[in-house]
């Protein structure tokens, strides 16, 4: 009989239970990797070395492979998320209606490049290839909410209000 491999979660943080439940649902099979990473990201907001290492061991996935998967998919983040974020849609319809100018305006207003977080961790400027709301183009997703009817000026204002209210 083979001694079962016990891999303990990195801490007794309750959120690991959710992660563990996901893995259990898939019988701790390696193929559960992406689903588990989703669970980690949903619980912790991002994937760090500790969680990747834990998930990889528990699912018997080589660590380099877990890292390879985590970095292949843009949905996963290896950095802690910002407090607020704005995902500007750069889908074709939005692009045709000037959403790249919105990125530029936000980039200038917050002095960060697309894909970056402000040094104080308050705000992240992101872009997406299409959020599938082409009918409302141009749109952006601000803290998870789709916002439409945008111009480079008003998006800066909308984001500015959220970032400055400190919530």
């Amino acid at each position, binding site marked *: 009989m083979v001694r079962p491999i016990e891999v303990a979660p990195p801490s007794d943080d309750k959120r690991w239970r959710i992660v563990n439940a996901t893995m259990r649902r898939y019988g701790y099979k390696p193929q559960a990797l992406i689903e588990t990473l989703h669970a980690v990201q949903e619980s912790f907001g991002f994937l760090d*070395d500790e969680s*990747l*290492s834990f998930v990889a061991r528990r699912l018997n996935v*080589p*660590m*380099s*492979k*877990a*890292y*390879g998967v985590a*970095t*292949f998919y843009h949905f996963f983040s290896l950095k802690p998320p910002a407090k607020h974020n704005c995902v500007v849609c750069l889908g074709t319809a939005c692009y045709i209606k000037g959403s790249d100018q919105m990125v530029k305006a936000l980039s200038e207003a917050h002095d960060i490049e697309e894909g970056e977080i402000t040094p104080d961790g308050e705000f992240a400027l992101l872009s997406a290839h299409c959020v599938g709301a082409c009918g409302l183009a141009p749109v952006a997703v601000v803290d998870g909410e789709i916002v439409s009817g945008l111009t480079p000026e008003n998006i800066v204002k909308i984001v500015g209000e959220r970032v400055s209210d400190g919530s």
Partner: protein
Amino acid sequence: MPVKTFKIDGQDVSGREDETVLDIARENNVFLPTLCNIEGLKPVGACRLCMVEVKGSNKLLPACVTKVEEGMEVTTNSERLQKYRRMILEMLFVEGNHVCSVCVANGHCELQWLAEKLGVDHTRLNYMFPKKEIDVSHYRYAIDHNRCVLCTRCVRVCGEIEGAHTWDVSGRGINAKVVTDLNTPWALSETCTECGKCIQVCPTGALFKKSRAVGEMTKDDHFLPYLKTMREVDNAE
């Protein structure tokens, strides 16, 4: 196993049905350039250098993963194929920072050799001069990502033969990069067995022994087919 007869560049050849066009071309001394392919590791069809024309198909097929078929007529060296192959090499030269003159593998590099063989004397593409890393943390080995062509031979030899799977590819597209473990410095890798196989299969000077100076990193991948055969023999018992 059934044997198929077909033609390579007009020459009649035959092969078992589980063999590839590349196998049979090599058997018959027909030169096909390859970079990701290496005898003894699973073919991945990634470098696209071994693409051939097959009569009746408007698509080019990678010889390394194309199984032989009865009656197929394969052309290995048309002008079009030569042009594409040169372009592929040019792409590799501009994608990284390949400074042959000061590379540990100078004179022993498959990329350099292929460029010579295929007549690449310059590239019209735009040099990207990426800022890539060098990891010299390991006491014996080092990796210079500037010279990596992402053939994934190291990934495969480490996973398929050594069984450590220390290497894998991270990121994607032009930002893809081979990593050890969780992109940890090589020296801190928990899985690396220091067997050195990755060093030997690397076609360029990306992976090398730190004890080697410029031009001194010769590669020896002859152990691969041997290991593979022995594994089959061992498993058969």
